[in-house]
């Protein structure tokens, strides 16, 4: 019977190892759960909505690659002549009813399903570079921005210390404060600030970042105009423009040169890098997300077809992990609310 002891010990060890791997015991680095806990505990989170970029509009249209595209990647999306697209425009906060004029960041997400059964999901934003170089710094930035329970205001000392350690956050804050904002989603440029690896038919790899550049001319709004604008002026504008015809974006790749910061999305690559237009996105129809086809899609940027692979950018991987947690939580909420988000 003395041998019961080693048996108990073995079981306890295996159990403890599993609990540690699963994050139940021990100190863990930042997890996607912790990121989403912080996201949903601040602002005006509503059940059934995304933990960030909660306000959104679904759209659909088509993507048509240029002949140049097929030379860069074996992905079917780079050669199939026309591909049906489902997408989503978003505003950056977790308040699904936030006024459009208050959002410094706009998002565009796209799903391309090609005829070989593969799926490519793209998540882009109107900023030209990401707020922080790592998910840890991004989390610290959000923590520093939450009100101190004692004073009801964010602790300025925290933010100063963070900015000293992460000057890229200051650069982002300057962009958010000063960059002119346009009067329409249709003339907004969206950038996928993370790098990806394209593999062509000869097996040659290229590191790239992509953008959607609008064909519609940029028209800036003043701070006063943004403040005075209707809560949903972007949706109203989108419907008005689409009633008159489709909206078109050129998808443009920037190809990295040796030494470019592949893994740091807070650093834009020089404007002089080789650029290739790989396709056009034609948007024909938009509808509210409440019952639209984009609501229950996770625009996970690591759902990629063969011929496109992730870079080692830690923010890219963290986005995929965080979106998954956000998706699981909101779909669960929708589930217990019998299919609706509110």
């Amino acid at each position, binding site marked *: *019977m003395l*041998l*019961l002891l*080693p*048996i*108990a010990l*073995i*079981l306890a060890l*295996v*159990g403890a190892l*599993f609990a540690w*791997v*699963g*994050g139940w015991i021990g100190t*863990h*680095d*930042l*997890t*996607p*759960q912790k*990121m989403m806990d912080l996201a949903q505990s601040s602002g005006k989170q509503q059940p059934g909505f995304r933990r960030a970029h909660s306000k959104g509009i679904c759209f659909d249209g088509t993507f048509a690659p240029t002949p140049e595209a097929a030379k860069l990647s074996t992905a079917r999306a780079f050669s199939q002549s026309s591909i049906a697209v489902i997408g989503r425009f978003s505003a950056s906060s977790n308040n699904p009813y936030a006024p459009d004029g208050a959002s410094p960041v706009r998002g565009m997400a796209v799903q391309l399903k090609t005829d*070989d*059964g*593969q*799926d490519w999901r793209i998540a882009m934003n109107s900023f030209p570079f990401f707020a922080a170089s790592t*998910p840890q710094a991004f989390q610290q930035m959000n923590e520093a921005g939450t009100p101190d329970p004692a004073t009801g205001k964010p602790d300025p000392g925290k933010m100063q210390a963070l900015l000293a350690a992460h000057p890229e956050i200051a650069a982002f804050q300057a962009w958010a404060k000063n960059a002119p904002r346009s009067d329409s989603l249709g003339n907004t440029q969206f950038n996928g600030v993370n790098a990806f690896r394209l593999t062509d038919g000869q097996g040659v790899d290229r590191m790239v970042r992509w953008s959607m550049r609008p064909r519609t001319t940029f028209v800036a709004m003043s701070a006063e105009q943004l403040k005075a604008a209707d809560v949903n002026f972007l949706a109203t504008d989108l419907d008005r423009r689409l009633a008159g015809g489709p909206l078109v974006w050129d998808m443009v790749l920037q190809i990295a040169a040796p030494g470019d910061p592949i893994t740091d999305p807070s650093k834009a690559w020089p404007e002089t890098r080789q650029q290739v237009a790989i396709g056009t996105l034609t948007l024909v129809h938009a509808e509210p997300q409440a019952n639209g086809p984009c*609501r*229950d*899609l*996770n625009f996970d940027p*690591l*759902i990629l*077809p*063969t011929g496109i692979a*992730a870079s080692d950018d*830690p923010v890219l*991987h*963290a986005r*995929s*992990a*965080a979106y*998954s947690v956000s*998706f*699981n939580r909101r*779909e*669960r*909420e*929708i*589930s*217990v609310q*019998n*299919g609706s988000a509110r």
Partner: protein
Amino acid sequence: MNRPRHFNLLARLLHWAMALAIFSMLFIGAAMVVSLRYRDALLALHRPLGIAILLLAIVRLINRLARPVPPLPVDLPPIQKFAAHASHWLLYGLMLAMPLIGWAMLSAGGYPITMFGGVHLPAILPHSPVIYGWLRPLHGVLAYLLFLTILGHLGAALFHAWVRRDEVFAQMAEGEPK
């Protein structure tokens, strides 16, 4: 029907190969849901490994039902006999159910069910947030149940080998005695 003294070679091969596969699968699953960096890499292993386990579990179930199995020791107390039978059928149920729930859950979540390269499996359920919202937590809860059942199974196997010193462990570990 003459009962063999040990499990047949196919049963033993499947048992040990699947023990390794399912153990890896549980650890991959537990790690990937909390990983900020390796979720995609672990998920890329998790999906095809799960389907492999499903296929092996079907072969194993057929072999289990078609072939006679060695008896439990005659002096084993009834409560332990019951626990042995119940836990084995629970293990069979879970190793079939877990991959199916995973597959169904990805279908309901509107996810591609990527195996390797460009190979995909078809969806087995419609895209539905209501179904996904139930299946995703179920997949997690049953994974922990499966882990606990395997832990109990491991403990019982070692109990037979080291404490009772009966034939049960050798029935799965060794071939038919000469």
